[in-house]
């Protein structure tokens, strides 16, 4: 009967999509071990009433909503301190996080406070193996291998790669007990002074369900309208190869690959990207890969599920038009 603590991410009072993924994984492991319990932990300001009720249908049995005005912006130090205290109180067998920007910062802090091991950015999690009863699988060497680890101490801790664990559909009939707790984190050394969001409210790369990436084959930043047009037709995020970022055509935040972001969307469309090993490292776990390249021997075709051999400048406008027709 495993007890699982799941950190549920919200920003600005809005639940992240990963909430369903993390709670879904927690529910599956809790039920697999025979009527275990899933405790969701929400941290922020004024969130219990607005967000708490949504978590039962996603798989939580109990919701701990830790609230305080100074918790409205993320603070790694405060969030870690509170979560470690929750873990000490609940004594879970497993603590789960999303491997989002926030989760990647937070999970190792909590693991360090508790002095336990953490498996970061996992793509699979199972019960019944390893010292504490869980085994986690995670990509290493930039996705060129998969490492399976067990945990020497309890609780086991893992962060889950976004888009990999499917969120079960919400069960409206399920409800959770929501406990709103006033949690003053006390003095903080790392208060966030401001959050600066990029002007465009585009979908973020690592959270996107579809990613359209442009490489050096796009010839210059003035042609990015073609990439953006296709992305807009699909509601996709845009990415870039390192060659493009190094040339200054696109910001580094858009780089996909070993020294950029790792993405696992359900559809990845690479345009004018050769498919260097360092690029593949960042996107080869995508569910479906499409390549558009004028060179039939480009290595990207080796990992692509579907390819078009042709000039991106001719193919992209037509493709955008066809997708618009489909969605039309």
């Amino acid at each position: 009967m495993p007890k699982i603590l799941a950190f549920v991410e919200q920003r600005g009072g809005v639940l992240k999509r990963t909430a369903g993924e993390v709670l879904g994984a927690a529910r599956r492991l809790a039920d697999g071990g025979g009527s275990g319990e899933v405790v969701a932990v929400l941290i922020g300001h004024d969130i219990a009433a607005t967000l708490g009720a949504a978590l039962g249908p996603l798989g939580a049995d109990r919701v701990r909503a830790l609230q305080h005005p100074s918790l409205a912006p993320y603070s790694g130090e405060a969030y870690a301190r509170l979560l470690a205290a929750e873990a000490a109180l609940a004594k879970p067998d497993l603590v789960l996080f999303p491997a989002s920007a926030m989760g990647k910062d937070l999970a190792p802090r909590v693991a360090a406070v508790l002095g336990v091991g953490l498996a970061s950015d996992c793509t699979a999690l199972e019960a019944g193996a390893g010292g504490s009863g869980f085994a986690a699988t995670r990509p290493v060497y930039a996705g060129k291998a998969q490492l399976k680890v067990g945990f020497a101490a309890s609780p086991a801790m893992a962060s889950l790669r976004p888009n990999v664990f499917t969120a079960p559909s919400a069960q409206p009939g399920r409800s959770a007990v929501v406990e709103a707790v006033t949690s003053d984190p006390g003095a903080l050394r790392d208060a966030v002074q401001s959050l600066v969001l990029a002007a465009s409210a585009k979908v973020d790369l690592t959270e996107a369900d579809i990613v359209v990436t442009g490489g050096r084959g796009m010839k210059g930043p003035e042609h990015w309208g073609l990439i953006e047009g296709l992305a807009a037709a699909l509601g996709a995020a845009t990415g870039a190869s390192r060659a493009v970022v190094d040339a200054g055509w696109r910001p580094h935040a858009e780089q996909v690959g070993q020294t950029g972001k790792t993405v696992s969307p359900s559809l990845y469309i690479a345009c004018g990207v050769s498919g260097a090993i360092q690029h593949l490292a960042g996107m080869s776990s995508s569910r479906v890969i499409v390549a558009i390249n004028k060179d039939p021997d480009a290595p990207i075709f080796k990992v692509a599920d579907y390819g078009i051999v042709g000039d991106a400048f001719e193919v992209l406008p037509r493709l955008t038009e066809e997708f618009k027709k489909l969605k039309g």
Partner: protein
Amino acid sequence: MRIAVCIKRVPDTETKVRIAADGKSLEPSGVSYDLSPYDEYAVEEALRIKDAAGGTPEVVVLSAGVGDAATQIRKALAMGADRGILLKGDLPFSDASSAASALAGALKELGADLCLTGKQAIDDDGLQVPAYLAQALGWTLVSVVTKLELKDGKALAHRQVEGGHEVVEVPLPAVITCQKGLNTPRFASLPNIMKAKKKPLEEKALASAAPRLTVLGLALPPGRKAGRIVGQGPDAAPLLVKALHEEAKVV
């Protein structure tokens, strides 16, 4: 002022991964090693801080692990770091707490105002040594930093988050993890490579700690099934859309 930089020796990005006979580790033959790319940003940032302060801060490079990491320390010395400390010993793969406790022990002895690391080592992609390190030292931590300013005993950092960046101010001493975009690492000139050979590199045995993770296995990822070329040129566009809609069902 003293700046410590933690660097790791990792298989270079071109490495074709093969699994060793034990089924738990990388087959080492034929692998060439390099400084983890994010650690280069850490070294560069330390050197910029040093240069901006008229050369007074001392930049000390630390690495824990196999003895061969001396090569990567020399690379950082050739870029301009002042001296190196190599903590020699076997570190269990991907066990962050072992690496961090070795580094923390050395850092406590050394004393520093700032510790710079990479945001991620590109072998275990562990994303956690800096957090364990900060915890062990009782220092603040700012991760995934793309801009850093030091002033009056404080660090003002921009950290990358989804869709933008956060501006965070923390008191020193702090552990800061470096992300691409922070700077452009310099190349070592030949004279500096020669000079680096004479810079001090102290070797110590690392104090080992009980691992918190156990490796159960290392495997190659499942291969992707063969794909197909749907056609040539713009006329293939409708065929692709049809395949994605009806066959792959992703749009």
